[in-house]
């Protein structure tokens, strides 16, 4: 059960521990989730493009989930 008071604005230096705790016990690759979360913020603040982000994780997502339906797919991207 979630602690109703748990959510807060996490300082950036504490974020990774909190994100790891959220993913603890998940049926999927925890490390992949953490890396994607970190890079998704990099996309938001312009350090990484949507296309770069998409290509970086496409193969891993296909292997883990059997699909990659993210909206970051660049035009003309070859799914295969």
């Amino acid at each position, binding site marked *: 059960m979630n602690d109703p008071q748990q*959510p807060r*604005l996490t300082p950036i230096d504490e974020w990774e521990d909190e994100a790891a705790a*959220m993913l603890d016990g*998940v049926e999927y690759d925890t490390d992949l989730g953490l890396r994607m979360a970190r890079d998704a913020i990099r996309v938001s*603040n312009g350090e990484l493009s949507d296309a770069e982000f998409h290509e970086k994780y496409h193969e891993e997502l296909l292997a883990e989930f059997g699909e990659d339906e*993210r909206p970051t797919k660049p035009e003309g991207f070859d799914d295969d």
Partner: protein
Amino acid sequence: MTNYGLVIDQERCIGCQACAVSCKQENNVPMGQFWNRVLTEGGDKIDTPSGGYPEDGGSGSLDMEYQPTACQHCENAPCVKVCPVNATYTRDDGIVEIDYDKCIGCRYCMAACPYNARVFNWDEPEQMPEEGTGDVAARPQGVVEKCTFCSHRVDEGLDPACVVNCPADARIFGDLDDEGSTVSKYINEYETDQLLEDRGTDPKTHYISGEMSPGRPQTSDKMESELDDVSPWSDGAEDVPSDADGSDSGDSGGSHHSIESDADPHVPAVGSGGDD
């Protein structure tokens, strides 16, 4: 193009939790979960102030500030970018929503959200009463859920429940792409912040601090854009009263001035004679 957003005036917020409770009721949020929270800044605990009582004739320094927080419906939403099955998506009107039929519960979106706005249904959700509350179907165990800006209400031309039920008129919902909307005017006219701006997520929730705005008194459940006769404060910058507390109006309620509309008032007009 419509692009919905929220302005929260932290100078008006009184920390009453009405937004949190009305959200929970409207959206059938399970026991133990909250989509909408009023965090507090102040003392050591969630409900304790900082500072101290006046002692020995001195002035006190008690202080507690409120930080209402929910999904920020970011323009550059990290949660949307990491969802492998596209269960989290951005609607054409800017609202970030979850397709609970698609969600596989991987919680990658929770890890990516800098605002801790999402909750996970670890167990079979329990409602009180058992049949649930509000107008939204319960979500199943094993999915992530969060604030939707009450999209089911917005689709019917109604303001989100938290906005309608804020007794301090601290929450204003509207179209950020409409320069004439109250949200757009307030963002232009008042000092506003977005949470964790350094993350680049560009939240659609903006917080006013420093100077109190007039808010937007609710004349009905309807969104501002649905009203024929909206608040005169939204008609132009020159109409925004400089005296936000309405001290010369004779009304103790301050922001509740007369509305000449056939809409049923949602918040009763406040009579004169004090606020006790």
